[in-house]
């Protein structure tokens, strides 16, 4: 299972990549494997305020529909239109082209509550 070293993770399987005060969010390799083939995503639109721990997106596979929780609070600055058009990107490239949305961070301290790659790996039994 791939867990890149430069990311932080929520226990609910979202990853966060920081660039300045912008957090890019997606779902982990483990999450996409558990969901199996993803057929639909619904992403928050730019301008929306999201709150850490609250659902803000939806992902559907042939197996299940799941909520995606915002790992951090803030304003959505972009969502991945390419993923909406081709949800399979979350399966084939979960940490790259399969990103979900970007959040302008409201509270940097929330990053400390996220798991580092080792802790996340442990939480999924790696």
């Amino acid at each position, binding site marked *: 299972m791939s867990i890149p070293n430069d990311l932080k993770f929520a226990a609910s399987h979202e990853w966060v990549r920081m660039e300045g005060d912008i957090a890019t969010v997606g779902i982990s390799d483990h999450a996409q494997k558990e969901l199996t*083939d993803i*057929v*639909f995503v619904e992403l928050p639109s730019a301008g929306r305020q999201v709150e850490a721990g609250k659902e803000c997106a939806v992902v*559907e596979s*042939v*197996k299940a529909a799941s909520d995606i929780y915002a790992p951090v609070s803030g304003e959505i600055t972009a969502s991945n239109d390419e993923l909406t058009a081709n*949800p*399979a990107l979350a399966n084939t490239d979960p940490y790259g082209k399969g990103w979900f949305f970007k959040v302008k961070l409201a509270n940097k301290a929330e990053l400390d509550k996220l798991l580092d790659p080792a802790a996340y790996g442990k939480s999924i039994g790696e």
Partner: protein
Amino acid sequence: MRPPLLNEQSKPGLQAVAFPVTNDPVDLPAEHRRQTPAPLPEVAEVDVVRHFTILSKDNFSVDTHFYPLGSCTMKYNPKVNEYVSALPGFAQLHPLQPASHAQGAMRLIFELEQMLGEICGMDAFTLQPAAGAHGELTGMLIARAAHLARGKPRRKVLVPSSAHGTNPASARLAGFQIVTVPGAPDGLLHPDQVAPLIDEDTAAIMLTNPNTLGVFEEHILEIARMAHEKGALLYYDGANLNALLGLCRPGDMGFDIVHVNLHKTFSTPHGGGGPGAGPVGVKKHLAPFLPSPRAQQNPDGSFSWQHNLPQSIGKMRAFHGNFSVLARAYAYIRALGWEGLRAASRAAIIHANYIKKQLEDKFPAYTNRPCMHECVLMANHLKEAGLTVRDIAKRILDYGYHAPTIAWPIHDCLMIEPTETESKETLDAFISAMRKVAREIETESYTLQHAPHHMPIQRVDEVKAARELRLRD
């Protein structure tokens, strides 16, 4: 080969029904009138009949196959039910006919409410809800109205993680917040899991008993006590009532509201064959909130509708529910009687335990407890063979059985509900087929991966179908 679609058979000028041509003025505003004919296929009646008859031969149904679809209670639907519901006095009633002209139907409604009340241990019933989830919504609206009437609206509803998905959906639709109660390894709901979550803001706890793992919730009396102590209501999802008929009653377990799926427990057709019916029963203290109108018997023995119900949540459905479904359930209950219902539930429980025992070396049960009317079996060692539980479901079709429910309420499981209406020979043949599939998992994974092999339509690419959804040409 796929039979041609009706659209593909269409030929201008063909028609099934010859409508009279009229030059009478149409009483419809011009902007709402169709300018061009609707793009419907033009086909002869005989071709329409053949088209659907041919398609119907590819169908799996209780009348053609054993259908052990867990949690759906696909029992045989006796044909005498059809005879009763088709009696002209029922079938040709107009829903707007005054109650005084429909005393037979009124009596059926009134008596069915009484019978369901006796079976479930509840004081009053409504027959309006159109199906199970509609019954849940009705029940949740009653819970909301009851708390409001007490002057204390409440916001939360507790739902176990193994609940049917409709439970949280119905509670949410009624305006509640959902609090999920986690499952325990033994498959039971424990009072100490409920205790930290229940409080004075909890409107209700929604439970199924036996639960979705097919196990009887043996702490139910304690959980009912805890709910009532906090002023919360206990809601019974009747999905699994087929295990309890004449043996024990939700009302006696402390449930305040129940819904019953007539299309499961009371043998009315479903799964494409029916509409359903989801009657809701309540304890006396909640009766004023039931939907209006309510059937009542007058002192002279006649029946009428009671409309003056100021605390009622109002109407949940046009007219009086799916009446012809009610007539079928009435016929079923009258045919079986109390002893017959009890025998049905006992047989349902014995059948499920028989399958569980006969398959335990190949598909071990999720829990060692005796099951009720359905068993949840684990399909282990699938990953090593590169298979999923879906492959088992597809392969069992080749052996002539509808697939069990799969991957719910837990991963890699098969939920098998044989029902009481199957013979030992049928159960044995199914068990033997499942054992063959178990051998194939070990030695012939390719056969499973590409199953079904003997169905009119082979493995469907569900991912492609979902990703490239095309609803019209």
